[in-house]
């Protein structure tokens, strides 16, 4: 595989009681690129995310993250290895402030446990302070630092989306999986989001994004892979994909 | 997160609890009338709820009856008598808490209770530490063995009942091999263990020793096991309703070997529950169950007749042995206080010196080495014959 490949999906198949949500899907994601995965509803996009992040086990096939297989690893282990996701529906932690939510994001990069924390050993305190700073930094990145102490679930929807983004970024991932980040955002917020994502890419972050907002997809992504009925029907640059007859037929066609 | 918003307020909240308590306290400070020093206070911790409630309820009844009768007369040396009764819900921890409270808070001069062995054993350390005489209504051997200075007992011990049963098996039935089926609770296990230990001395071999849960309703599994043994008789150690179920199961399985119960079924409830299956069942019981078994004209007989009559009149049901335990415990202490007053050490020594005190369960004699009061002769074997109790001579 090419040296600058960060994520490689190899003939991944996932069956649900007989019917296949994914049929030997294969594609790769290049480091520092924004790749979009599109397709009509039920095409298997979210299933793919679940497979990638270890929530589901592929029936067959393999997934390589930075060259090593992550199939069979627990979700938290995969996150530790530098791949983190957001969810289609916002999943902030109830009763936690925005800051605390993001601090959970940093979780996997610290190791203080029950003992050191319950005794507040210096090591734990140092870690806590560090954690707080980095979390604040992450909030600043998405411009939510002024609301650090508000309960996350009380924020307006758009900001909840951003908070989720910040929480994911706080884990300092190599690759970020976004599941319809623009869903429910208005024009302005969507614009903000895309510019945010673009300059994260500028900082060398790789992004695999599932999105229905074609405008956003076409304008942001370097590459696109199109799924339909669990199969890859096309992939390549936005231009290529846009003009692919099968895509138009299967997807854009329907849209129009 | 509540915890974040909480800081200042916990004191507020704890205060509320306390204030509530203390307010009500002062509130009722007005209500409760003269805590006159001249009242003789005796504490009682009984199992008024929970599994042992069938024991505790009648014990409480007769204590209340005794209090009424004493205070109707001249009380004890002109002092009114008050039994302060607590429920331990058949739970040892509650029993310990209750006796502590009665001694430290109510300032009782002596204690009665509890109904079950476990709860009583939990009270023992407290009574010993506070040097308060405790007369218990539980039959477990462990309570007075070894003898503890301040702990006395009214009911016949399990070992007395067991001796009675063994004697019956040996001399009346001439049986060599028995099976034991006991309740898994303290009463049943204690009895079964001791029975198994003593049987060989009577030349009897225990060929099966099974148990059942207090709330089980079908013991056919254990019984079929026993059916396959050469057991010539079945000894069941437990309290209602278990033994009744066993009797019915035996009828169902057409098991013909004799059913010998414990003093735990020395009550009419067993007959009601087991119905026809109760016939032929025999068990050790206090003589008060069949007043006729006590020679007429004797002080004891008169006491029993009066007690059973009064009890029936007051509560509308027959007095069982537990009612007798309660009554006797109360009598022993109040009698002792006639001479000892409220002096705790005096009460202990007086109770220990009790000789020939006529109770309902029997004639009580205590000594420094014997805190059990009764003897095997206060028990008899009873057989159920078409729904009625008959003494086995």
């Amino acid at each position: 595989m090419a040296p600058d490949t960060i994520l490689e999906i190899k003939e991944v198949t996932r069956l649900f009681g007989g019917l296949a949500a994914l049929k030997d899907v294969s594609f790769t994601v290049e480091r520092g690129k924004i790749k979009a995965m599109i397709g009509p509803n039920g095409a298997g996009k979210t299933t793919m995310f679940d497979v990638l992040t270890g929530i589901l086990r592929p029936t067959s096939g393999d997934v390589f993250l930075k060259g090593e297989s992550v199939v069979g690893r627990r979700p938290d282990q995969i996150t530790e290895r530098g791949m983190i996701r957001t969810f289609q529906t916002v999943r902030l932690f109830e009763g936690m402030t925005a800051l605390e939510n993001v601090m959970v994001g940093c979780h996997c990069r610290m190791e203080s446990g029950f003992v050191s924390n319950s005794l507040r050993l210096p090591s734990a305190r140092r870690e806590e302070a560090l954690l707080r700073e980095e979390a604040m930094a992450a909030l600043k990145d998405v411009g939510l630092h002024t609301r650090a102490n508000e309960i996350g679930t009380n924020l307006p929807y758009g900001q909840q989306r951003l908070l989720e983004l910040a929480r994911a970024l706080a884990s300092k991932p190599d690759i970020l999986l976004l599941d319809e980040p623009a869903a429910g955002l208005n024009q302005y917020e969507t614009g903000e989001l895309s510019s945010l994502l673009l300059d994260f890419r500028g900082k060398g972050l790789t992004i695999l994004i599932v999105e229905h907002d074609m405008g956003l997809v076409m304008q942001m992504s370097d590459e696109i892979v199109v799924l339909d009925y669990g199969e890859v029907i096309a992939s390549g640059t936005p231009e290529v994909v846009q003009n692919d007859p099968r895509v138009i037929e299967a997807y854009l066609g329907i849209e129009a | 997160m509540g915890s974040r918003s909480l800081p200042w307020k916990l004191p507020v909240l704890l205060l509320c609890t306390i204030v509530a308590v203390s307010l009500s306290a002062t509130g009722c400070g007005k209500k409760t009338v003269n805590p006159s020093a001249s009242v003789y206070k005796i504490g009682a911790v009984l199992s008024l709820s929970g599994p042992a409630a069938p024991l505790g309820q009648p014990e409480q009844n007769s204590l209340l009856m005794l209090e009424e009768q004493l205070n109707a007369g001249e009380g004890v040396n002109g002092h009114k008598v008050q039994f302060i009764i607590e429920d331990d819900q058949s739970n040892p921890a509650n029993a310990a808490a209750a006796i502590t409270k009665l001694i430290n808070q109510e300032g009782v001069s002596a204690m009665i209770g509890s109904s079950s062995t476990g709860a009583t054993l939990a009270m023992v350390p407290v009574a010993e530490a506070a040097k308060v005489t405790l007369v218990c209504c539980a039959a477990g051997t462990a309570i007075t063995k070894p003898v503890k200075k301040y702990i006395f007992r009214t009911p016949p011990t399990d070992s007395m009942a067991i001796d009675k049963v063994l004697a019956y098996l040996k001399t009346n039935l001439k049986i060599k091999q028995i099976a034991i089926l006991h309740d898994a609770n303290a009463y049943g296990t204690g009895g079964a263990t001791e029975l198994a230990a003593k049987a060989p001395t009577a030349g009897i071999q225990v060929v099966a020793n099974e148990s059942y849960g207090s709330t089980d309703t079908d013991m056919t599994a254990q019984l079929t096991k026993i059916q396959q043994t050469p057991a010539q008789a079945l000894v069941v150690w437990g309290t209602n309703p278990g033994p009744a179920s066993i009797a019915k199961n035996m009828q169902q399985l057409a098991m013909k070997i004799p059913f010998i119960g414990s003093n735990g079924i020395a009550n009419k409830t067993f007959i009601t529950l087991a119905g026809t299956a109760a016939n032929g069942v025999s068990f050790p019981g206090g003589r008060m169950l069949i007043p006729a078994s006590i020679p007429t004209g004797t002080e004891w007989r008169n006491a029993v007749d009066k007690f059973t009559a009064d009890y029936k009149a007051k509560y509308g049901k027959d007095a069982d042995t537990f009612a007798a335990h309660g009554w006797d415990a109360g009598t022993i202490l109040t009698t002792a206080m006639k001479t000892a007053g409220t002096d705790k050490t005096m009460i202990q020594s007086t109770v220990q010196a009790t000789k020939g005190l006529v109770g309902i369960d029997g004639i009580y004699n205590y000594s420094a080495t014997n805190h059990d009061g009764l003897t095997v002769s206060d028990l008899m074997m009873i057989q159920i014959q078409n729904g009625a109790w008959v003494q086995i001579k």
Partner: protein
Amino acid sequence: MEGQLTRQSETNWRTYRTLIIVAVFVFLVPVWARFIPGDVLHMDIVNIMVLAGVYACAVIGLNLLVGYGGQISLGHAAFFGVGAYTTAILCTRLHWFPSWLGIIAGAALAGVVGWLVGKPVLRLKGNYLAMATLGLGEIAFILFQQVKGLTGGTVGILDIPPLSVFGLKFDTDFKLFFVVWALVMVLMLLSINLVYSRVGRALRALHSSEVAADAMGVNTSRYKVQVFVLSAVFAGLGGALFAHFQKYINPESFTLALSILFITMVVVGGMGNIWGGLVGVVILTFLPSVIQALPQWIPGLPSGLSNFSNYELVLYGLLLIGFMIFLPKGVAYGLARAGGFTEMRARHLRDRIKARKIESH
């Protein structure tokens, strides 16, 4: 930004301050208890407080498990019992064995048992986890009864020596009271630290959404087991103290009823509220005595009613239901809100006075 950071740590600090206030308040119990006429309260407060403290150990841990970890347990009486039996057996069989060491051993063994059963059982969720833990509790109870050689069967273990630390004997309720509650305060301190730490956040996260917590790199299965073990250790600690306090134990003290009492204390006090455990313990240990004293405060109540067993449990049951209907988030939460209200009023008043002063100038 600075401001926000300080505000965060301030919350912490205020919690500690509250803990100190509570501690002072509790340790003064023997003092203010004197001012309540004994024939009125009908309880030996110090004695009951020892029992309450012993239960508190278990309940604080259970609150971490249920309230923060979101994992239910209906079997914690088992760990309480393991702690009690461990120290009781050690101290009665080996007379040289120091009771304080027995208590540590009890807590440790409870922890080990917690780990052994927690690892498999915590894969279950919701009502199924409730059932499994309940079953474990029942199994433990039966073992306490049946392993006669070790536990003394249904008769139990008598003559357990009082707690003594390096010759210092804590043989009276009064002395024991301070030991137990000092320990309770330590446990409270530990759990406060924990809740406001990385671990606490991880637990709350997995309580709120296991999938999301997983995705954020929280090893949920490990955290579940760890907090379960922690709660088992706390319960074992309480149980061990219980044994030395009662000086006698038998299986009847560790039934399902106790497990249910523990969980009820957590819920009535306030799940996931750091003070919930304590509040629940205080309320539910004092409630029966208060209910019991009620009749003499109500004039003209039929004497039949004043018989404890006849109405106490009726009222107790109704109160449980009432608490859940009117304070589903727990009394601690409810009173916190009430307290918050009064505090707000107070601040308002202060400002008004300030304002006046300024005017007067």
